[in-house]
């Protein structure tokens, strides 16, 4: 059977299933026996419900799904990347943060601009940022993907901060974020029809270029197609399409990715086949999913927004993609200019060490002896009761900084990739997932949250080992697994937010990484553990540095690189678990500290470990201090603050490099 026949068959069966589900819903809604439905006898009210509620909802599902499907296939075509989609390139998180900010700070803007417009501006801005971050690399697909994912994380931290400070108002946004297709009129449908028509017009114009682009980047270039221009046009177009759908129905992730993965597996040859069937398949999948959720609601009376469910489906899909569909030739290991640059210009000064230690001392001293009060800043001296509060937090922050920085150095060395970071390994997400599940299943009264956290981290770690053992811990795949876990965590948090439970606030704060409740004893213990691991790593710095060489070379030098990698992953996991329990699953410290270390000219493992530990500590003390004082007396959790500082620096650095 040819690929074309197969995809037509799939579409037909999806269509049939969806029709059955729709008939089921209508019959259930009308309370009339099947096959004897008499539309004339239906009451006025029921007719209103049918015409203004269900029919636009079904139409909306098809159109939204289609729009997301076509956006995804276009993104994948122009970036040559089977992992690109609206949810992986930060379009949706950009749109979300724009709407959140507008609702919280300038609600009157909503009366002037439609929320679709605001979402579009946000989505476009974040896409432009991804562009700027990957501009120097000629939009290298992998660099773009990583930039998108990192921006996703950064915007996530920003959203958390906003939600923490405006808990009551933010509840409205949660409902939007969950992604629901409920319609009450044809108004929104009309809007999306207009947008889709414009989209089709643009697509017809671009169709020829797509055919050429399919041949590959170099061929396309030699045939006179300006790849960069087409990319820019397409991505603007995708931002427009996605932002409009998202502002109307909220976040519905991974539907496009699911449909397009199916299409890619079938290997259709013609570009317009691909586009057409991406549209129909994604539309039908979303319609069917939504109908099934409605039927579940009829019989079990619990409501699940389709966006949340699609995000859940997304994780296994992403994992499947990583291990099956993603060709091994695609590698994140970019020989990026940063590393080469360092090797050419090794700088070595004693000044750095003295400067770093001096900064730490000054930060420590001022952080401990200056307090903000409702009367302004005052010097408290060595006030015992205040020290009692501050010291544990600062020590905890420092330890987390040291651990994350070490971990970052190890990962970056192992993966030959200066963009690897502990957040992207997934262990921290695993720990957070376990904690949320525990709280959801067993209630909030279980206070030692660290226990499920540790278990979750260990299970994730075992899982990562299990699925990576065949790939011999191929570094890229390990990190992509982590990204999948982070996506799952986001979906889970969404599900929890949508329940409207007022206590979610507290969980959010924990997740955002607060050093708030650290005790003196536990913080000192953590600090000693961090120093101990640093010591051990320094002793073994020579064998570790061999891993930086290509694999065949390090093997030739008498190193069993598989065992070494395994050991290093174990150490990294321990470090990440400890740090996550202190400051939450996200922060860019592990990415940033090693990066800065490289930029200022350290490329031996030993000095890298030491220097990035110092830089990590500086960043964390600064984050803690700023978090406590920027919005005094409202405290921004250290983890969020670290993500915001780290993320901003990172976006700046990656643009410069």
């Amino acid at each position, binding site marked *: 059977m040819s690929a074309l026949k197969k995809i037509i068959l799939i579409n037909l069966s999806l269509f049939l299933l969806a029709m059955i589900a729709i008939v089921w819903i209508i019959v259930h809604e009308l309370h009339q026996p099947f096959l004897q439905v008499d539309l004339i006898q239906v009451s006025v*009210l029921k007719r*209103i*419900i049918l015409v*203004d*509620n269900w029919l636009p909802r079904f139409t909306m599902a098809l159109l939204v799904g289609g729009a997301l499907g076509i956006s995804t296939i276009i993104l994948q075509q122009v970036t040559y990347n089977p992992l690109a989609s609206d949810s992986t390139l930060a379009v949706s998180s950009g749109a979300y943060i724009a709407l959140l900010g507008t609702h919280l700070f300038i*609600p*009157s803007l*909503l*009366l002037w601009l439609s929320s679709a417009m605001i979402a579009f501006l946000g989505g476009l801005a974040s896409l432009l940022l991804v562009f700027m971050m990957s501009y120097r690399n000629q939009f290298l697909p992998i660099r773009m993907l990583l930039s998108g994912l990192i921006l996703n994380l950064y915007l996530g931290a920003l959203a958390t901060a906003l939600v923490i*400070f*405006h*808990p*009551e108002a933010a*509840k*409205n946004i949660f*409902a*939007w974020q969950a992604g*629901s297709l*409920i*319609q*009450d*009129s044809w*108004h929104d449908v009309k809007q999306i029809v207009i947008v889709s028509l414009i989209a089709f017009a643009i697509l017809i114009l671009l169709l020829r270029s797509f055919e050429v682009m399919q041949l590959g980047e170099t061929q396309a270039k030699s045939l006179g197609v300006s790849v960069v221009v087409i990319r820019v046009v397409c991505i603007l177009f995708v931002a427009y399409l996605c932002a409009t759908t998202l502002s109307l129905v909220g976040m519905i992730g991974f539907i496009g990715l699911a449909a397009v993965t199916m299409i890619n597996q079938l290997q259709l040859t013609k570009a317009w086949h691909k586009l057409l069937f991406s549209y129909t398949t994604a539309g039908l999948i979303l319609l069917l999913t939504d109908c099934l959720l409605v039927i579940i609601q009829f019989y079990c009376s619990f409501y699940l927004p389709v966006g949340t469910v699609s995000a859940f489906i997304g994780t296994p899909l992403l994992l499947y993609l990583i291990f099956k569909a993603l060709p091994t030739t695609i590698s994140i290991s970019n020989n990026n200019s940063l590393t080469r640059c360092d090797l050419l210009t090794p700088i070595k000064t004693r000044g750095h060490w003295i*400067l770093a230690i*001096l*900064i730490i001392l*000054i930060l420590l001293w001022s952080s401990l*002896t200056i*307090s*903000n*009060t*409702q009367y*302004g*800043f*005052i*010097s*408290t*001296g060595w*006030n015992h*009761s*205040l020290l*009692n*509060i501050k010291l544990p937090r600062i020590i905890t922050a420092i330890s987390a900084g040291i651990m994350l920085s070490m971990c970052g150095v190890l990962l970056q060395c192992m993966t030959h990739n200066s963009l690897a970071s502990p957040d992207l390994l997934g262990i921290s997400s695993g720990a957070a997932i376990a904690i949320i599940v525990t709280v959801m299943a067993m209630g*909030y*009264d279980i*206070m030692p949250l660290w226990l499920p956290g540790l278990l979750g981290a260990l299970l994730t770690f075992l899982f990562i080992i299990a699925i990576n053992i065949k790939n011999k811990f191929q570094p890229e795949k390990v990190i992509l697994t982590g990204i999948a876990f982070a996506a799952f965590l986001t979906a889970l948090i969404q599900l929890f937010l949508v329940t*409207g*439970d*007022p206590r979610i*606030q*507290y969980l959010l*704060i924990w997740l955002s990484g607060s050093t*708030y*409740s650290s*005790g003196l004893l536990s913080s000192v213990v953590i600090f000693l553990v961090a120093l101990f691991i640093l010591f051990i790593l320094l002793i073994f710095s020579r064998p570790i540095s061999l891993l930086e060489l290509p694999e065949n070379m390090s093997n030739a030098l008498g190193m069993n690189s598989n065992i070494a990698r395994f050991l290093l992953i174990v150490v990294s996991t321990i470090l990440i678990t400890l740090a996550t329990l202190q400051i939450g699953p996200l922060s860019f410290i592990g990415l940033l500290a090693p990066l800065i270390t490289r930029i200022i000219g350290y490329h031996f493992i030993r000095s890298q470990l030491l220097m990035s530990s110092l830089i990590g500590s500086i960043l964390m003390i600064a984050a803690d201090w700023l978090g*406590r004082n920027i919005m*005094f*007396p*409202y*405290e921004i959790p250290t983890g969020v603050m670290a993500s915001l500082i780290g993320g901003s620096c990172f976006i700046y650095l990656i643009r410069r490099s």
Partner: protein
Amino acid sequence: MKFKITLISFVIVSSILWIIHLPDSNQDYAQFDNPTRIITTDWTIAETLLALQAPLVGVGDTKEYATWVGEPVLNDNIVDLGLRSQPNLEVIANLKPTLLINSTWTQNLIPKNIIPIKLAAIDFYTNEGTSWSYIVQTTEKLAQLVNRTNQAQILISQTEKQFTDNIQRLKTIPKQSYAVVQFIDSHQLRIYGANSLYGVVLTKLNLDNAWQHSTNAWGFSQISLIDLTTLPKNTSLIIVKPYPANVNQQLEKNSLWQKLPFSQQGNYYILPSVWGFGALPSMQRFSSSLTNALTKQTVNTW
């Protein structure tokens, strides 16, 4: 490179100078001779303590309190403790309070033994929402804790009296049922059952609550616009503020809403915001603003 070093050293030197010039804290700015100094991060406890005239010195998130609770107004002497979920420990330490009252859940979040303070937990809501008798009982418990039992009796009888007054005023309006809702956006809303603050007030005013289905532990269900069609025929909608700025604009384009009886003038009432998870003071406010709206004494528009 030289520029960077100059910049860094400039920052260091200026921060040292700044530190030296800071005022000293040796004058104790937060010392009063009050025997008990109470703080809380729970707005429901805060409003009750204010109504009981207890010596309240600090409340969590006073900025948002003004928007969401409003009355009773926090006077200027009451210090902002920061986030309700994570009050600023340094501020608390400087305030030198003697008693921290919170709900059980919040109390667990505040690290113990860091600040010398007596802790007490008071819950106005159980896992099944709340009820009139439970709120009265809890108010009395709280009053006992802060030595204000007389004031508690006054507050309770005051509230009861207001209810009977309002019942008198409501006698003139025709009998129908009421659904108390808050708009999340133009598609979804929260509807409050009998075990919510609004529901308790409706019962006390002998008004019928149109929402008889189950609710969550905070007394509300999240529904979509279509579910409003299942309400009894002669129902009026009580819309409690706040709602997103563009809700009215979007509802005008919403054909389902336009066809629902509630969109017609006179079938809905808009009330100013009242803390939906509050206690007696919030009940008093809701009761009087509801009566004012139903007897058409005050008419709020979108």
